[in-house]
């Protein structure tokens, strides 16, 4: 239960939280992705990649909406909420208590359960009758519904006009996004803001709550609203070659159950299609929520710190691209490749304190200021 958003400032705070929320999911998906041994689990790799690419799109879309209404995306904490848009793991998401604490963990059934909880259209447990209503939103979808509702009420044309002036050059466009489904639309008016927010919800949870119990009747049509009830697992993105995408929730459900949905099945149903082969054993035993501080004084500390530095540079570059320097996104791509190789190297390295568990990147943007990392030869 939440009060409606009543001021533009509140709306901007919500959108900054949205950017932070999308960013929060990316390391947890990447961590599982990079833990999969090279060449193994191709279905899982493709699936997680497809989701994480769309989370990057959602982060950029949320930033476009915030810029469009004159807000400035920033990594600085939102004072009022004491919330940093760049999380430390394990991470909590403000305002959406339905989302559990988000961990960095290797690819396991438990990790996929967490992914399902993040992307679930409705809270897992219905509140007991007579129970005190929880404060906050019940799902990411509800959170975005509130944002969309507020934009409809508060973002008058003058707001977009002022935003276009104050935040000129800050809209990212489809040139800067590729590899995933969906489209990075520049947001300049209410219509584009709706499209951006719809894309986020549609690709993530895939459907409004009411569709979970709808019968698989009507075929897909061009009218999204009309067909969403009938063509449930499809999120209406059509990729090159006519490839149709399912929502994140549906995709993770396939992974968890080891079966594809058949076309036309409901998301709430047990997938009954083709087998998805998942090899849970071909996974590097990376630790859960690793930190550089946990390795201080050991030979691997430098590598942990370096990975965190790369991550920080990525986040800063991405935010720079939200702030009128779109080319920074291209620079971030190089860093993303660098982080991938650093992450895999760490995940192949046994932890000094517990050799059965391997290291992993901590994704620590707020790395405690420790002793300077020694450069050059050695490092332990």
């Amino acid at each position, binding site marked *: 239960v939440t009060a409606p958003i009543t001021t533009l400032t509140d709306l901007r705070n919500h959108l900054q939280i949205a950017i932070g929320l999308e960013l929060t999911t990316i390391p947890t998906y990447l961590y599982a992705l990079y833990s999969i041994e090279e*060449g193994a689990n191709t279905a899982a790799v*493709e699936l997680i990649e497809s989701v994480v*690419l769309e989370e990057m799109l959602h982060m950029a879309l949320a930033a476009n909406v915030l810029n469009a209404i004159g807000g400035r995306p920033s990594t600085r904490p939102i004072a009022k909420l004491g919330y940093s848009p760049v999380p430390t793991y394990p991470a909590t998401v403000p305002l959406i208590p339905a989302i559990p604490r988000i961990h960095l963990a290797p690819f396991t059934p438990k990790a996929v359960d967490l992914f399902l909880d993040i992307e679930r259209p409705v809270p897992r447990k219905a509140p007991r009758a007579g129970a005190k209503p929880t404060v906050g939103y019940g799902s990411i979808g509800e959170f975005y519904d509130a944002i969309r509702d507020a934009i409809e009420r508060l973002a008058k044309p003058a707001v977009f006009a002022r935003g276009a002036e104050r935040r000129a050059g800050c809209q990212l466009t489809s040139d800067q996004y*590729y590899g*995933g489904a969906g489209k990075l639309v520049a947001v300049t008016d209410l219509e584009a803001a709706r499209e951006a927010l719809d894309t986020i919800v549609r690709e993530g949870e895939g459907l409004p709550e009411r569709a979970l119990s709808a019968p698989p009747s009507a075929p897909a049509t061009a009218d999204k609203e009309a067909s969403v009830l009938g063509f449930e697992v499809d999120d209406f993105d059509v990729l*090159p*070659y*006519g*490839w149709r995408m399912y929502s994140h929730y549906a995709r993770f459900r396939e992974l968890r159950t080891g079966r594809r949905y058949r076309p036309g099945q409901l998301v709430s149903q047990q997938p009954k299609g083709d087998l998805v082969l998942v090899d849970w054993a071909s996974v590097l035993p990376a630790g859960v929520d690793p930190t550089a501080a946990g390795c201080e004084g050991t030979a691997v500390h430098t590598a942990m710190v370096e990975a965190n530095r790369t991550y920080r540079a990525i986040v800063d570059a991405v935010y720079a691209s939200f702030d009128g320097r779109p080319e920074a996104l291209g620079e971030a791509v190089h860093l993303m490749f660098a982080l991938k190789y650093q992450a895999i190297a760490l995940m192949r390295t046994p932890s000094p304190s517990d050799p059965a568990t391997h290291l992993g990147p901590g994704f620590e943007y707020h790395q405690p200021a420790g002793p300077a990392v020694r450069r050059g030869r050695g490092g332990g």
Partner: protein
Amino acid sequence: VSADGGGAGPDEGGYDVVIVGGGIAGATVAKVLAAHGGRRILILEAGRATGMSADKYRSHVEADLASPTKVPNAPYAFNPNAPQADVLDIRQIEPPPQGGVAPSTEPDTSGYLVQTGPLPFQSDYTRALGGTTLHWLGTCLRMLPNDFKLRTLYGHGVDWPFGYDVLRPYYERAETEIIGVAGSTDDQHYPGVKKRSYFGSYEYPMHSVPPSYLDSVLDRGLGGHRITVGGRHYTVEMSNTPAGRNSTPRGDYTVMGAAGNPQQGQRCEGNTNCIPICPVQAKYSALKTLYELMILHPGDRPPTPTRSSVTVVSQAVATAVELDEHGTVRGIRYTEYEDEATPTPATTRTARGTIYVLAANAIHNATLLLASGAANSSGMVGRNLMDHPLILTWGLMAEPVYGFRGPLSTSGLEMFRDGAFRSDHCAFRIEIGNEGWNFSANAPTSTVDALVDAPTAPLFGRDLRRVIGEVMPRQFRLALEMEQIPQASNYVTVDGRYRDQLGVPRPVIRYDLPDYVRAGMAAAKQASDQMYALLGLHPLPPRPDPDAVPAAELFPYPFDYTAYRETDPGYLTYGDQGFVFQGAGHLAGTHVMGDSPRTSVVDPRQRCWDHDNLYLVGCGNMPTVGTSNPTLTMTALAIMAAENIHADLGNRS
């Protein structure tokens, strides 16, 4: 729809078009025809359909990773039922008997190609669904207007039956509808070519892939400098190479990712592995077009006015073009095999349609026609076999140039592609390689081996890393690629004595290079020498002797390391100079197009003079090859042929 055949293949008529060959030419013809709607199309592919899903494509990548020698066919397993040429099979051919003019009586049969010499034909190709686009570089240069008039302007080769302007709209379609080319018309610098008449207002569908760092170093050292070759002066100018490689789209162009995983390969990731395999499928291969056909025009559903039906049958080796007494093609006989045991359980079938298209490569189109006794009233089938014979030059730069980052090549030097010199020697193009000494010396493996296995003070540990760090980033190479002119005496033929395990005749090749081409090599080497000198690289004095010099001193720099050994298979001489040439994989010219049925195999519509329902497509139709990698031109020609086939079908129904 099943790319693996799956059960009984077609053994009856009913197809509008039967296409032999599941490479880019066949896929292009099928796509253009299918787009008109209502067509039933069959594609027969001799090889397997391994690449047709993302996980199976991955098995090619794994095979490449496991191979110590990164030759073009490293990822594509040899298939005894559809054998393929491989560069590792190339041997020096025995010279003909003293005083004799006939080829040696003992050809080299150690590889799949039967080679009678005097020079070995050095190009390979891939027989699998997708064809040789599985390992092409992706270079998409168009031919130059003067390339179409070589005989008239320079007195060599032949003229094409039509000029550049006729082909230009088909080039545009090949670049946007089939391949997807990244490039910028502003960055194209060709001799004597004006942008306005060559491109008009056209722009490539994707922005250029950024040039490599090496390109910028070479531009700094060479750009704007004058060099002199054969008494003529040339100004060095870098030209960004258009490529079938995904990049940022222009306008609303849709970038096509991997076949079976369209989210992957939306942009080039700079793996420097275009040859032998792009691991992410950012580089175009015919698999993408075939995959699109399977989704949009499924073979298991009947065609509608807007949708066609395209069936792909793999593991189906065409063995004969069946003709009736009027010279009309009545069917394509083919052998369908399952496993690779010897002898192979195989079934013979016949595919029947209204119009037939041979879309195998230049060698296999020719051998199929020769084995069938078809299309050869001119006696030209198999003749005029061409390639772009190339010589490499390589060196260690004064400063690191950091190869192995970005695509295999992003720029070239195009100033020798046309000019008055073509009366004296062949035109050539200079491709700037971005993969160190990989092509010239199988680096990095060979570099590391030389340091580790050195007889004197071999290196290991930190010292090894240091020396590798000095040598590897300084490696670079140029490929000087010659225009080979058509000659009837260069040919592929068949000989009943040489057959594969299905009984299909193996290609028998006679190959030599004329002085016109060898003189081009000498001129190109002259150009290369001057450019190396401008870069401060002088010829390496005798290479350090590993027995006398410690490993750490085996690779001094900066020097031009180019050296041609008489023992190399491609060794040839021109005057007192020796060169080692390589193949470019550009098989062309074996069923040339022309204005006369006496001197050509297909007419300007690319239909056989001898058979009014048989079309040939592919590089075999090209009367001359110019200096551009031929795939783009071949694709443009295939679109043109497909529109002619569409017109023929309309006239028949």
